[in-house]
Each structure stands twice: as structure tokens, then as C-alpha cells.
């Protein structure tokens, strides 16, 4: 479903791109990955490892500097609009909403951006709000939501278009343990029963181990190891991939 080949991303001042002076930051280097349909694939690594950059490239929000990525056979750099019909990204933060609008109005707007007509947008927004356990706060303005509620609203937004590929950047960061467990169960159902491909960036070793079929350990923009569920000694292998002691 997702193929990345020799993928690299360098951020730097505009002038540096033309060979001028300026400090460049190499966020990704030579990343090669395959994620299968219906798989939950984890990106695990410390801050600055390149997890979010990789998700943003797959979501077409960033262009790769080297290599290429395709989603369902569509090149993310050359065919972004078609890729966006297949992919949805939920960032971990609680921003990205119109705070004076209610949760329902926010989701109706974003469903409209996906091309759903008014009645379908309303139906999908209501379903997603119930799924996110926000049914009681549907008509409250988002500014009254707690951080965890806004994070759940972000997950609900990502599910509006029933995407074939779901990209999640630290999806349970601000959730309480019960809500986090419920979401993990739901994500597993989505992948197993719905065939949704899920790429999950996380710091949390236990979350990756519990939820992901395979995990790429990223550090300094490079894939250090690929771990599969059931391989055993997950934690120590992760630390060893990062070059640290358990």
C-alpha cells in the first residue's frame, strides 16, 4: 500500500537549496519501507528522529528531497490530489480546529472539504463524533473542549472520509488510559476488519508493541531497525537499535 524508496528530506534556508550558505537539517535519509494493506505499522523513535516528517511526506504536505514514496500506486510528489483521497493524517496536537465552532460544525466543514454534500457531511460528522465519544459535547464550541477531547476530535476528523490509509502522529498522547485503550482497540478493528492501513508515529514503546504489526525504529532520520510483533525482547531490541543500553 505504501512504498518508500531511498527517501530523503533536507530542510534548509531557501538560498541553501541553490548552493548558497545556510544551515541545512537532514530530517530523513535513505528511508526504504513497504507497508502492506491492513497493516498497523509503527514509527518509533526519539524526538527529531524524522517520524513526523515521514508522515507529512506520505500525507503530501511535504515534498521529498530525494527518493520517492507512493501510496496505492500513486506518487505523493506528482499526484498529491489523488493521494489525498486515499490518505488522512491526524496530528497529535490539539490545534487545527476553528475554536469558535462546535465539534459538529468543525467536522461538517472538513467533510465538505472531502467533497461530501451537506446531508452526507452531517451524517459522517455525527457518526465520527459518536465514535470519538464526543456525543455529549457535539454542539459545544471547541474552545471549551479539553486537550484530550480535541485530540479525539482530530482522530474523528481523520476518519470522516473512511480513508484507506490512516496516518497518526502520536494519537494517544493526551488521552487518559481508558480512552487510549479504547482507541487502540478501535484501530485494531479498523485494520483487521476494514483493511485500513495505519501508520502510527509514537514515542511510546508499549503502545507500539501492543498495537503494531511491525515497527521501524528511526533515529537521526534513518531506519535503524525493523521489528515485528512477536519477535520478543522488543524493548531491548529497540534500545539496542538506538545504540543505548537497556
Amino acid at each position: 500500500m505504501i512504498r518508500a524508496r531511498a527517501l530523503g528530506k533536507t530542510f534548509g534556508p531557501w538560498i541553501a537549496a541553490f548552493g548558497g550558505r545556510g544551515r541545512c537539517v537532514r530530517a530523513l535519509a535513505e528511508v526504504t519501507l513497504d507497508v502492506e494493506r491492513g497493516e498497523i505499522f509503527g514509527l518509533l523513535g526519539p524526538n527529531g528522529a524524522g517520524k513526523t516528517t515521514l508522515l507529512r511526506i506520505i500525507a503530501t504536505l511535504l515534498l521529498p528531497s530525494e527518493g520517492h514514496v507512493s501510496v496505492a500506486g500513486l506518487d505523493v510528489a506528482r499526484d498529491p490530489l489523488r493521494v489525498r483521497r486515499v490518505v488522512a493524517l491526524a496530528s497529535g496536537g490539539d490545534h487545527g480546529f476553528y475554536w469558535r465552532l462546535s465539534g459538529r460544525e468543525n467536522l461538517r466543514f472538513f467533510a465538505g472539504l472531502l467533497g461530501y454534500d451537506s446531508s452526507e457531511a452531517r451524517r459522517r460528522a455525527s457518526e465520527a463524533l459518536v465514535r470519538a465519544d464526543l456525543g455529549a459535547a457535539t454542539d459545544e464550541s471547541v474552545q471549551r473542549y479539553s486537550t484530550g477531547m480535541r485530540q479525539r476530535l482530530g482522530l474523528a476528523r481523520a476518519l470522516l472520509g473512511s480513508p484507506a490509509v490512516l496516518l497518526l502522529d502520536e494519537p494517544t498522547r493526551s488521552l487518559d488510559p481508558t480512552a487510549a485503550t479504547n482507541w487502540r482497540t478501535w484501530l485494531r478493528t479498523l485494520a483487521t476488519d476494514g483493511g485500513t492501513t495505519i501508520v502510527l508515529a509514537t514515542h511510546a514503546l508499549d503502545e507500539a508493541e501492543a498495537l503494531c504489526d511491525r515497527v521501524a525504529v528511526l533515529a537521526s532520520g534513518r531506519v535503524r531497525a525493523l521489528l515485528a510483533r512477536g519477535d520478543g525482547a522488543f524493548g531491548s531490541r529497540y534500545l539496542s537499535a538506538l545504540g543505548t543500553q537497556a
Partner: protein
Amino acid sequence: MRSGVRATLWAFLRRDYVLASTSRLAFAWHIVAVGFAVPTMYYLGVLLRPTASPHLALYGGDYFSFVIVGVAVTTLCAATMGACAAAVRREQLQGTLDVVLASPATPGTLALGASLWPAAMAAVEFALYLAVGAVIFHLQIHRANILSAGVVLALTLGVFAALGTLTAAFVLATRRPDALTGAVTSASVLLAGVFYPTTVLPPAVQSASALVPLTYALHGLRLALLRGDDLGALSGDAAALAGFLVVLWPAAILAGRLALVHLRRTGPALG
């Protein structure tokens, strides 16, 4: 069911209506501002009436009619130009730009959608200026040629929408507030003859005013609304505006594409 572009435009219109309805005071203030501006212009016209300048003869000699059309058109043009850039800046500051750009809607659809509500509000304000002027202060537009006024207005809005797209591309690429709309509007007010006919300007400045789209918009619309000139009589103004359209739209589309590529190369929408 997915109905595409129409659904996306409707979503923008609906969102902006709901947002506007949460701050009705701001909307009411627009109405009040028109209510103050029109009498101000009327009494300025009364002051100038005994000494009506020969420069106004082309437009019927009434300063109030001359200036109210100028102010109404300039307000509409400035709003049309600034709408998309203001929307981009709001989305940057709210942190919603990435989410909007990650949608499968084309950039053109997003730009149009984001501009619909402010443009509609500006059109209401434009109509209010003329309606209050006509009903209460006897603005002389009973001879207006609606067809020719409509054509000149459509060309004018096309030109300012192109300028607005250029401005939005600037805001998108630089992640800075819109500095262009204010500068273009201020220069246009000076050069295009909003408050006075361009014939009062020194010859060198008159040459500069020939480079400003608003000059042709004001001239054409005043003749269409105040004298009822037909399209044949306004062909010079219409041709000039069409020329601006032909030059500005390709530049605007190119700037928009470059800004989006720049954004995808350099990272988050607001760095």
C-alpha cells in the same frame, strides 16, 4: 455522496456564515459604518455644490454621486483583493492551514471557497452604499445601464481577484501578514480618482494612474451608473481591464503554484 467542488464551496460558505453569526456585532458595525459614511459624503457634496468643478461635468456635475460610486467600488475591490490573503493568514494563525491544504480539493477551489463569504459581504456593502445613497440622498442612478455596469464590474472583480491570488501566494510563501492589499489600495485611492477625477492630477501623475486598474473600473462604472453609457462607449475601459486580466491571471496562477511548491519544500504552514 460526494458532489465535489459544489460541496466544498458550500462548506466554506456555511462555515464562514456560522463563524460570522458568532460575532454579530462586527457585522452590524459594517452596516453602521455605511450609515455614517453616506451622509458624510452627501454633506461634502452639498458643500461643493455651488462651486461644482468643471472636472465633474463628464459625470453629471454632482460630487455626491461621483464620490459615493468611487467609495463603493473601491470598498468592493479592496475586499475582493484582500479576501483570500486574509483567509490564508487566519488559517496560518489558527493552525488549520495544513488540514485544509491536505484535503483533496484543488487549490483553486480552496481559494474560491475561502473568498466567497467576504466577497458576498463586500457585495452587500457595495449595494448598501448605492441603496442608501439612492433612497435617502437622491443619488442620481436612475439612468444606470445595468448591463454595461455589470460587464465592467465583472471585469473589475476578475482583475482584483487575480491581485488577491497574487497577494495570497505572497502570504502563503512568506508566512507574513498581507502587506500588499493596503499598499495597492492606498496607491489606487491616490491615483485612480476615488475622491476626485484624475483630470485634476498633474500630467505626470495622470500617466501613473493609467497603470492602475481601479482607474478604468471607476471611470467605466461611473459612466455606466450615472450617465447610462452603453458597452460601446465603455469599450476603452473594458479593453484596459481585459488587458489587466490577461496579464495578471497567468502571473497569479504561477505565483500560487510556486507558493504551494515552496510550502511543500520548506515545511509547516507557519514556521
